[in-house]
């Protein structure tokens, strides 16, 4: 079926028709073309950038790795020497009492620095007086504990005396009680020993620790404390200022 006259007319007229596009049409096309151009021109540069960045990262990584290996070794050495020093100091502290005496003296000195009114001799004497008191109290406690143990033993004896009169079941129960009581006795013994040891050791240990900390604190903590105190003060000031502002 061939196109007829009407269709020929349609074609001719439509093919000769021209519709002027709007002025913005070219601008839009221009923008699209420039965007496409940018993409095309950026591509080779993008590859270069990627390659360059990889190279840079690799070199930096290698550099850092080599540096790390050198820096780690001296750190290990430092740690080793420090540990050795510590062990030496500990051994001296544990073994020898003169050092503790010295520490007591230093504590006295520190106390003198803090409280200049009191005398060194008085301080020492007070310490000496205090320690016997502690020993006395510990002895008293021991006596009390011994009495308790005796009481417990008495109770056990009574219980044993009572048992034959009762039934087997009750016997078992009482045995349990005895067990419990014996446990209590053991606990009392443990407490006794622990109290004794704690009393004996604490007199020495607490002194050493406090003295060491005080001596160290004067050397090391002064700067830290100063900073912390300043921080605290500033924080409080800020707090106060904020509270005031909020109240206003």
């Amino acid at each position, binding site marked *: 079926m061939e196109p007829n006259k009407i269709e020929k007319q349609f074609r001719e007229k*439509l*093919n000769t028709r021209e519709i002027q596009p709007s002025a913005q049409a070219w601008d839009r096309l221009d923008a699209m*073309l420039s965007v496409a151009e940018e993409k095309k021109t950026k591509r080779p540069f993008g590859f270069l950038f990627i390659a360059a960045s990889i190279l840079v990262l690799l070199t930096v990584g290698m550099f850092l790795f080599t540096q790390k290996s050198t820096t780690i070794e001296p750190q290990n050495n430092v740690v080793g020497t420090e540990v050795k020093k510590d062990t030496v100091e500990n051994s001296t502290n544990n073994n020898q009492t003169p050092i503790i005496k010295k520490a007591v003296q230093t504590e006295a000195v520190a106390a003198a620095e803090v409280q200049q009114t009191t005398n060194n001799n008085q301080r020492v004497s007070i310490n000496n007086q205090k320690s016997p008191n502690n020993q006395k109290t510990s002895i008293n406690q021991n006596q009390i504990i011994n009495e308790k143990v005796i009481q417990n033993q008495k109770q056990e004896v009574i219980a044993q005396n009572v048992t034959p009169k009762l039934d087997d079941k009750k016997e078992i129960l009482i045995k349990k009680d005895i067990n419990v009581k014996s446990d209590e006795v053991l606990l009392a013994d443990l407490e006794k020993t622990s109290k004794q040891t704690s009393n004996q050791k604490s007199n020495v240990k607490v002194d050493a620790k406090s003295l060491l900390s005080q001596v160290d604190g004067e050397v090391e903590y002064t700067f830290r404390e100063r900073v912390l105190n300043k921080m605290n003060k500033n924080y409080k000031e800020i707090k106060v200022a904020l509270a005031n502002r909020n109240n206003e």
Partner: protein
Amino acid sequence: MKVINLYQEEKELIELAVENNRHAQQKIYSRFAPKMLSVCRQYIKDLHQAEDIMITAFMKVFTNMKNFEHKGSFEGWIRRIMVNECISFIRAEKKVKFIEDEKYIEESFNNIESQFSVEDIQFLIDSLPEGYKMVFNLYCIEGFKHQEIAAMLGINEGTSKSQLSHARKMLQDNISKLKNYDNGTE
């Protein structure tokens, strides 16, 4: 001589445009845009939408310029890109479904001798459904064969033929209506 000069000029322009010479691209655009907008308008009723399609099609023209072999006419090549763009737009947007009927009536137009204005012709084409319109445009205006149209639209050749016959029938009815309306007013 003049034709050869024009051809030479066109060739030079194309070569420049391939190298992304914006001036050459603008020259090509301003030479072909009005005709191409007319082509797009054949398929798409809304002029703004037709212009959008024309711009995207021109984008394709410029990005694929290096693929243009100087065998056929440059205008024909651009026009083909425009038509393809319009068809793919219509098929994507309107989701045209072609009814696969192989029946079509071999019916010839009454050879109406009356003359129509371009506006009337466009009005008559606009009044056709999308499927009929595409086949009619491709067959009667662009001069494609049914085989080509079938390949372009992804339909059977028979469907293309039946669509064309339906389009013609509808056009004839519309023409007679238009004529009656004109006679009525006269």
